[in-house]
């Protein structure tokens, strides 16, 4: 327990300390500068853009993963030949390292040697040398495809488990009483899978908020800073620009923000029974 406390508390205390100092690559002095770094956060448009990019990824990927996962779970809910094998295979993307997922998709999206442009070429009838990881209007779809590919099976597995725990006799009773499909779904199925769904959403939301690996392998945050997420921004501030104190301030803001979100969310979803 003590180790855990130490590991959790040390970075925090250190972050708070450094964030009030004025350490940069040029200037190693440990003088306290007050709230200058926090003021800089407010004025840093690149930071707010990174936050915006993160939010865009979040609000597009999360509903997509949920919806596709739910549809797939419905598809695999009843008996099907080879069902177990297919479910087993579908797990694969989830456990693959996000870095490998990124490399897989950069192979897939490669403008000359990748199969995606080839298949698109077949469909339109002429060659389609699309620069998926470079063109500004194509990078977001590319990253989102990789992200959704990797994590839809996660939603699928959890929702499948939740759906198979829904009380069958209730469904039959409702159906005999003449309730339609959607009515049954919203009145019986959804409430009973909600606890699991909420936790799945929470886990994915927090993961998406720290999105780093897939974007890093596909675009490194580029072109320019177009796909820079909050994690990539913080990384480049700390380890490329060496804005030590400023990075500390940013990191601290992330911790504070997420702590608030988590305290609220954990109470609501009731993960600890």
């Amino acid at each position, binding site marked *: 327990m003590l180790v855990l406390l130490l590991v959790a508390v040390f970075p925090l205390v250190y972050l708070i300390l450094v964030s009030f100092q004025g350490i940069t690559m040029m200037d190693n002095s440990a003088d306290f500068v007050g709230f200058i770094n926090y003021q800089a956060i407010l004025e840093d448009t690149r930071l707010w853009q990174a936050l915006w990019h993160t939010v865009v990824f979040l609000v597009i990927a999360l509903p997509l993963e949920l919806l596709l996962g739910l549809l797939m779970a419905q598809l695999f809910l009843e008996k099907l030949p080879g*069902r177990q094998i*297919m479910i087993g295979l579908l797990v694969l993307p989830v456990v693959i*390292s996000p870095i*490998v997922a990124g490399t897989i998709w*950069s192979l897939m999206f490669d403008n000359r040697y990748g199969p995606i442009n080839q298949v698109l070429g077949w469909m339109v009838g002429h060659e389609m040398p699309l620069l998926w990881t470079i063109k500004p209007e194509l990078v977001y779809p590319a990253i989102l495809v990789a992200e959704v590919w990797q994590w839809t099976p996660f939603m699928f597995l*959890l929702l499948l488990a939740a759906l198979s725990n829904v009380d069958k006799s209730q469904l039959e009773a409702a159906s005999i009483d003449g309730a339609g499909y959607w009515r049954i779904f919203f009145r019986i199925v959804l409430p009973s899978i909600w606890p699991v769904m909420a936790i799945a959403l929470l886990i994915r939301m927090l993961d998406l908020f*720290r999105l780093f690996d897939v974007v890093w392998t596909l675009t490194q945050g580029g072109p320019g800073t177009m796909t820079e997420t909050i994690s990539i921004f913080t990384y480049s501030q700390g380890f490329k620009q060496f804005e030590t104190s400023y990075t500390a301030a940013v*990191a601290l803001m992330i911790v504070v923000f997420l702590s608030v979100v988590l305290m609220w969310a954990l109470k609501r979803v009731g993960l*600890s029974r």
Partner: protein
Amino acid sequence: MNKSPLTYRLRQHLRLVVAVAVTLVFLFPVYWLAMNSFKTADEIYSSPPVWWPASLQLNNYLVLFKDGDAVSVWNSLVVSTVSTVLAMSLGTLCAYSLARFKTGGDHLSNWIISQRMMPPIAVVFPIFLLYVFLGWVDTYIGMILLYTAFNLPYVIWMMRGYIQDIPRSLEEAALVDGCTHWEVFWKVVIPMCKGGLFATAIFTFIFAWNEFLFALVLTRTEAVTYTVQVTHYLGGQSNFWTKIAAMSVLGTLPVFIAVVFMQRYLVRGMSLGAVKG
């Protein structure tokens, strides 16, 4: 549901077709990666792309071993294995105390799991500065301790759930029969949650194995893990696809094997214990 048998059978067939199609769509990228690792450079750098290599040659893998780059897979293995063992032993003890002696109550448990959910980017920075100070950057010990600490909340959380599932009366009986708490832990609790222990260990291993951001910041050459090594081959327009594919497959193999062995606990492990398998 009074549908005629014919439409029912038709629907079942349709479902099967869609299900197989979905599975294939999700698997195709993995196939593409694996297949590329067997291609020769000429086959990879050919447009239009080749969908099936002429022969399953292993040259791409041999190059990795010859260049010594495969050592990064070994580094990953050492760091992940040792940190998993450490996190499991510490974590299970903590979990037992949380589950049975109500150490800290619900608040402590909630705090522990929220530690797990903190983004690595928020803590990697002070840890980096600390490691520079201690001289731990790019060392096994640094990475092992970091991953141990990073995975500890998960282990505690999961094992607490598994231990709570064990009927308390069993332990009480053992206590009445004269066992010490320590003996109860070893002879009753551990055997009773062996499956959960095993599954949690595998998850812990996978988290450490797949981790990238910490490794990117804290390793250089000596302790570089395979995820970081893969990204070294990415270079804008001139990616070393042969090496990328081979290294990625090497890195995916262990998780693939691990998952095959723990199907039963998969959902519970992934949902942080929210769904009991």
